[in-house]
């Protein structure tokens, strides 16, 4: 069964077209990696799939439910890790995660498990504003997977993370997590290793959509020229 089915998706902000004519299908457990220069529409695509933005044209089905009409059926099954950590700076990592755990009906033992697995237990009671960006990103990863989502939407998930932290988050958001994933990336070699399907966007339009095995890094690099 397809986890994502998109047909002719368009989305604009006022007069500006952010996405147009995007069509794709991704099977359950698969990984779609989206490449494209800044402003290509990658973040907009993630926000539409997360039900935070309405599509202005086309058909979008996420985890079998039509967006936006059945968006309520998708919420709670999607984990979004975007540029913003979606965490309150004045609250500690533990308080932030417990807050999100309550919103998702998740037991607080899961919060402790995640803090432990991300080596954040000892810093878990410090206000987020006092933590480094890398640590905040680790907490954001914990927030995104707190409710064990079926679909992960990851916008440059390794930004601000050092190599050790990348290894720490791999079981949660990497291929080993066995979740369906959509990843926005600017790293052609790393992104291709992760991908089953590759989408290249430029100016909101799809210019590349193929199986990862049929794409080489030079084609990805061409998107940015």
């Amino acid at each position, binding site marked *: 069964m397809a986890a994502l089915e998109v047909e002719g998706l368009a989305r604009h902000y006022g007069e500006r077209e952010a996405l147009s004519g995007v069509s794709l299908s991704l099977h359950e457990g698969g990984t779609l990696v989206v490449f494209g220069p800044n402003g290509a529409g990658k973040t907009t695509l993630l926000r539409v799939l*997360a*039900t*935070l*933005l*309405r599509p202005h044209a086309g058909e979008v089905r996420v985890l079998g439910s039509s967006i936006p009409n059945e968006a*309520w*059926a998708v*919420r*709670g*099954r*999607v984990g*979004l890790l*975007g540029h*913003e*950590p*979606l*965490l*309150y*700076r*004045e*609250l500690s990592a533990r*308080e932030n995660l417990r*807050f*999100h755990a*309550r*919103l*998702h*009906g998740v037991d607080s033992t899961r919060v402790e498990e995640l803090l432990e697995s991300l080596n954040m237990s000892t810093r878990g009671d410090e*206000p987020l504003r006092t933590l480094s960006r890398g640590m905040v990103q680790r907490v954001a990863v914990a*927030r995104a997977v707190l409710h064990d989502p079926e679909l992960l939407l990851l916008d440059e998930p390794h930004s601000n993370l050092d190599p050790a932290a990348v290894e720490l988050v791999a079981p949660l958001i990497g291929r080993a997590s066995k979740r369906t994933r959509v990843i926005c990336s600017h790293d052609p070699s790393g992104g291709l290793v992760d991908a089953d399907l590759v989408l290249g966007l430029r100016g909101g339009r799809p210019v590349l959509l193929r199986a990862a095995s049929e794409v080489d890094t030079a084609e990805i690099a061409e998107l940015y020229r």
Partner: protein
Amino acid sequence: MKPTVTMRGTVGALLRKELLVELRTLESIPGMSLFAVSTFVVFHFALNRNSIEGDTAAGILWVTLLFAAILGINRLFVADAEQGGFDGFLLAPVDRSAMLIAKALTLLVYLVVLELVAVPAFALLLLAAPLGPALPHLLVTLLLGDIGVAVIGTLVAALAVQTRARDLLGPLLALPLLVPIVIGGARASAPALNVVHASGPPARWLLTLGLYDLVFGLIAYALFDFLLED
């Protein structure tokens, strides 16, 4: 999948978070309280009178509380808008009305704390009548007024925070909608603030406040989801 977390649980989680953030930042309540006390000091000297009573006292009290409330209303959604709290909430399988209720309760808590500081300061600096006998009457009126301010303030703040001119738009939208509460509140509390204390608050003004709260409660409940949606 329908919302899996109860409305009560969601409101509880949101309210706890709101109060925790305010406790850490102290961005709203101290500012509101300081504004109210400063305004009473200004009135004390500007009126060049040792004490006031009746309609004048009620008018000054309610207008000051209204402007102090505006400060809290303007800050109500700022942390959510700036730190992604809206998105975090919208991704959860919960009833969106929970945010309206939690935010209105948060503002209600702010107003109650504000009044715990402002009303004694008002009595000390301006009021001719003793506060004690007026207190039960005043508390009922303030509570009805606070509920209206909390509901309208939450609705307006949610609308204004989506715009670039939120600091301007919030008060511009809120003030006309809150004027009936000031009028009702002032008229209802004026008899209690006379030196010769009247029997009780005029029932028709209390009823007006109650109806206004109810109408705006229903309007806010009907509109709030749309304000959060894209």
